[in-house]
């Protein structure tokens, strides 16, 4: 793919130039390296003292689900600038699509791989169904509508119990099958490999989109909708595509998650998931795919490993007062503190894309006019 203008600016060392000239290949190589190295990094202290390698790998596979979600939401929020607070809904739709397609509940047993596409497609369809009537809404109205949608979808799966087994959820969801990979409940590696592969492909797609006509249209709409329309961009189609593609990524995540977990239940898709993913995107640095991925990975590990481990630590080190506190009980509080702290320290995220960094500092207005002089005084 030709060097997308999106990445033209900046320094151009030999390697940098090479990477930019062959974006897709370098992304694939990057993921291959990450995927190959992670399992061995956790063998060295301090990580090795934490938990066994297999547990780490299983955890990585789960965090991959969130990275996938973050990458998808990044298209909607980061690139097209549409605030979506109900993103978990599409995750749920993906999961249930797979549960319907491959579980003893419906009796259907469609293989995993085609279902990946089906799930993505189903999610995308709902993305369009939701987007079509609502996309003309101003930013924050759209936000609350998506928030509403995010509340409705799990509620429907919960209440329509004749079709979804309601709060019990659908169990016995089939696992993927491959001739050379044995998927089962004791060995996380196959899932890990699959996830890395999916992520690599999705990331390539994200970069290609960013550099494409569509990607530019997204950014144009984000920057100034009227100017975009006056340049011939059909803003409605553009936004719908952002919604659809973002949703389809969540669909993929849903299918994968359902198959790894073997069960789908409404309580997996609450508002908590939506804003966790949003936090991941914002923390990682909107608009920057790698940044978002890292943000998601970090936040997930903090949530599922770090916070759960504080007790043992303080009890072992015998810290005078701390070892008497039950941190497991307050991890939620620590999580909140972490969010606030990280935001106050790095409002534009850990790894902001070079150009978003500046623009993100302006207080957004309905009509993005010439940016106010305050624009640059972010921090």
């Amino acid at each position, binding site marked *: 793919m030709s060097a997308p203008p999106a990445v033209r600016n900046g320094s151009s060392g030999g390697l940098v130039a090479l990477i930019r000239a062959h974006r897709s290949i370098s992304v694939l190589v990057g993921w291959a390296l990450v995927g190959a190295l992670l399992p061995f990094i956790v063998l060295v202290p301090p990580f090795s003292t934490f938990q066994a390698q297999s547990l780490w790998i299983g955890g990585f596979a789960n965090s991959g689900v969130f990275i996938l979600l973050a990458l998808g939401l990044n298209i909607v929020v980061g690139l097209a600038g549409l605030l979506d607070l109900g993103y978990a809904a599409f995750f749920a739709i993906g999961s249930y699509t797979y549960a319907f397609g491959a579980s003893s509940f419906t009796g259907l047993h469609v293989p995993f791989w085609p279902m990946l596409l089906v799930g993505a497609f189903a999610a995308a369809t709902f993305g369009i169904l939701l987007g079509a009537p609502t996309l003309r809404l101003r930013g924050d109205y759209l936000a609350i509508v998506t928030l509403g949608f995010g509340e409705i979808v799990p509620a429907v799966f919960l209440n329509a119990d004749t079709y979804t087994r309601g709060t019990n959820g659908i169990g016995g969801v089939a696992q993927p099958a491959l001739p050379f990979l044995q998927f089962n409940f004791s060995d996380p590696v196959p899932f890990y490999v699959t996830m890395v592969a999916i992520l690599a492909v999705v990331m390539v797609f994200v970069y290609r989109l960013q550099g494409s006509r569509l990607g530019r249209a997204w950014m144009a709409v984000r920057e100034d909708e009227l100017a975009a329309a006056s340049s011939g961009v059909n803003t409605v189609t553009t936004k719908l595509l952002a919604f659809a593609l973002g949703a389809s990524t969540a669909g993929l995540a849903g299918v994968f998650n359902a198959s790894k977990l073997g069960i789908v239940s409404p309580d997996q898709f609450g508002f908590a998931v939506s804003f966790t993913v949003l936090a991941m995107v914002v923390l990682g640095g909107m608009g920057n795919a790698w940044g978002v991925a890292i943000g998601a990975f970090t936040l997930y590990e903090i949530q599922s490993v770090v916070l759960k481990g504080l007790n043992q630590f303080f009890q072992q080190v015998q810290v005078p007062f701390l070892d008497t506190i039950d941190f497991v009980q307050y991890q939620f509080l620590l999580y909140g503190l972490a969010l606030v702290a990280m*935001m106050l320290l790095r409002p534009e995220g850990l790894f902001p894309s070079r150009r978003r960094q500046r623009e993100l500092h302006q207080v957004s207005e309905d009509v993005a006019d010439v940016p106010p002089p305050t624009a640059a005084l972010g921090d």
Partner: protein
Amino acid sequence: MRVLRPAAVVIGALVVAFAILGIQQFENFLTLGAIYALVALGYTMVYGIIELINFAHGDVFMVSAFLSMWIITVPLGLADRPIDNPLQLTAVLVIVVLATMVFMGCIGVIIERFAYRPLRHAPRLAPLITAIGVSFILQNIIQAIFSTSPISVPQIFPKTKFEILGGSIGALNIFMVVVAIVLMVALQLFISRTRLGRAMRSTAQDREAAELMGVDINQTIAITFFIAAALAGSAGVIQGQYFGSIQYNLGFFAGLKAFTAAVLGGIGNTTGAAIGGFVIAFIEVFAAQVGLARWSEVAVFTVLILVLVFRPSGILGQALGERA
């Protein structure tokens, strides 16, 4: 502010609601609506002035419910038994409501100072995330102090009921609705008549311009947060007295509904927020009436989406903070 049109909408809606619900449920609807409206006002004011979806507001409301409970039990040392002496009752109520409102107001200001002001020029999503963080923090502080189980609030209000239109209406319900209406009218007057109110409106319209005209932006925003939190405080007292039992996580859902109400009414528009609150209360009570309680949340959001599809900026069009 245009007062006539909202007034007409309110009256019309009330008549319809009464016709559909019947007196007893109408009572429930008004009471619930009053609470949602009070909380929604906070969302709408904060949004109107700094375009921030203050997710922590619902939890400010929750904290205030606990605070009022604490004030009643510890400093006032009252038990779970109605006070029949009207003078004493009034005195207690005034103390509790005022104390809660003032204290919560301060908390609101503190939150703004430390969690939002530093991010005023940051990416607009940054304060949204901190807001969520703050709401976690508030929830956990309460959780640490009062545990996660439901806590019962001493109900000091007499359980007297009046026979009205063939239904028996609780004195408490009347009190609640009256308090809510008084506060809302007071707010309207404050915004439209006083100097600070004007400062708030101009800041909402165009912060830079207001600043040039010599409005102290920080002070104005702080005051907005104070009022918003104080209103949530009053709602918290009411919540405790009416429902008699509070839990550390009631803030999230109340907040969600209140915010929906604010948007439904046209976010940034204080009258709209009040109306939105009652609309949502109506939907919920109606759902319960026809035995679809489990669908009420779905109904609420469906209505929201439909309204926004046909009236993209809420029931009362022009928002306080609308940019040209």
